[in-house]
């Protein structure tokens, strides 16, 4: 988790650009809502680790970190998309304000370059969000749009009700949440929690330290070789759980389920208790143990097998 600090001195040229942009924004010379498809290119001087709030409800937002103390944006607004705005220096706000707040937001495609150390907050309705190479904290919220994160951010919070979330990033802290969207975790996190109601959660076990995965009815698949010393908690009401682990995995796996069927094709069942009323409890030792994985379900089936 490295933050690069380039110092905050603003060059006279950058100040001039920034003033010009502010002037343009203030005079309302940004895109008019009635214009045809518009392409806007803007630049803004910034500190090396600004907080950036991005609003783009519909379309797509792609944010990339770079090594300059400035923000550059290329925006393509569909007709009627709304008004583009951008302002700030340490705290930057930018985005597309819908022409008609009541109606459907028009679509806008934003490509934004931000200082690598930025803290980024994005809000979307059905716009997709992609972030790569940003090392500050990320807070990404969509309703129907997908969210995708790459790189090494300091923290990641990604939420989408219906859109899919894909985190390929390396981060110490990750929270991913959907209602029905799928969640794919293929990166690396020391502290991760993923939660859904009915979406599918897929997580690679490698390189995760502490993980909590939960769903109500969504399927959960954890695959790979769990990091040594890690701790996993998987909980679901009725979403089928599959642990597809490397054959030489070292783990202690506990399963508690009230009505789910448990199938174990990996490791050694060390203890098993089956009770009509209280369900079944299983303890499975794979290899030499060392990573703890606990699975709790109400009636979801649990399958523990070698990865193919």
């Amino acid at each position: 988790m490295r933050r690069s600090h380039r110092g905050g001195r603003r060059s006279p040229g950058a100040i001039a650009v920034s003033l010009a942009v502010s002037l343009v924004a203030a005079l309302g010379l940004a895109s008019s809502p009635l214009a045809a498809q518009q392409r806007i290119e803007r630049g803004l001087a910034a500190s090396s680790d600004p907080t950036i709030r991005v609003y783009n409800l519909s379309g797509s937002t792609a944010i990339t970190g770079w090594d300059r103390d400035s923000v550059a944006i290329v925006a393509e607004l569909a007709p009627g998309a709304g008004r583009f705005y951008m302002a700030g220096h340490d705290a930057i706000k930018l985005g597309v304000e819908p022409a008609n707040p009541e109606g459907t937001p028009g679509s806008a495609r934003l490509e934004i370059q931000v200082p690598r150390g930025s803290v980024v907050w994005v809000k979307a309705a059905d716009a997709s969000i992609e972030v790569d190479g940003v090392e500050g904290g990320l807070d990404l919220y969509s309703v129907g749009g997908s969210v995708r994160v790459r790189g090494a951010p300091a923290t990641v919070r990604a939420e989408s009700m219906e859109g899919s979330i894909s985190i390929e990033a390396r981060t110490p802290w990750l929270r991913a949440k959907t209602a029905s969207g799928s969640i794919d975790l293929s990166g690396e996190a020391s502290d991760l929690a993923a939660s859904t109601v009915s979406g599918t959660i897929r997580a690679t076990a490698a390189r995760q330290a502490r993980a909590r995965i939960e769903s109500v009815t969504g399927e959960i698949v954890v695959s790979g070789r769990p990091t040594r010393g890690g701790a996993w908690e998987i909980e679901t009401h009725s979403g089928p759980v599959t642990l597809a682990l490397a054959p030489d995995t070292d783990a202690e796996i506990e399963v508690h389920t009230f009505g789910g069927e448990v199938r174990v094709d990996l490791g050694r069942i060390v203890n098993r208790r089956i009770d009509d009323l209280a369900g079944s409890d299983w303890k499975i030792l794979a290899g030499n143990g060392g990573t703890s994985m606990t699975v709790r379900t109400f009636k979801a089936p649990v399958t523990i097998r070698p990865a193919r």
Partner: protein
Amino acid sequence: MTCEEVRKRLDEWVEGSLDERDEEAMAAHLASCDACRGEARSLEALLAAAAGLPREIRPPRDLWAGIDARLDDEPAAGVERGEAVPLAARRRPRGAGLPPWALVAAALALVLVTAAVTSILTRNDEAIALKLRRAGESAPPAARSADDREDEARFLAASQELLAGLEAQDLSPETMEIVRRNLEVIDAAIAELQVALERDPGNGELTRMLLATYQRKIDLLEQAARSGEG
């Protein structure tokens, strides 16, 4: 030194780690600049306050019982252990030890506090409130203290208030539809858990699952509320 430089290096100045030349420059600037002097003063006050915070704080409850119970699952201290955690050593589920409806009370009071509600919250909640109340009433009197009864009152008040006085949030119809569908999924799960709990009322694990599912419901509502905010 400019004000900006001063602000950046105040930390070092307060700790006395500037070299002589910078220290003089800093002192000279602070002598003549009211704004920066104010910043330096507030920083010093903050650090003094932080250093004055109590070093010890007694926890609100005695924690030994919980620790003692878990020590049973650990091998005796002094035995060399490798990295592997013995199978028996496991965290107990969250909320273990609290009466079930204190937990659900907390969950519902929470929804009230965060005001993350829509008109979609179903009548199920009232039924759940009543069921849990009855379950609480059938617990042995010794197990229910004045605090529990207070929680009960709060719980019922909260759920009543939620069901009676909700304000519709300004969410898009698409979002409402997503929330509705997923709430149905969660409510179905809650109903199943309730049935199971009726058959096995003392089951702590089931109660915990019920709470966790309730928490998911609150999460969903909060998530929906967030999507409506500007």
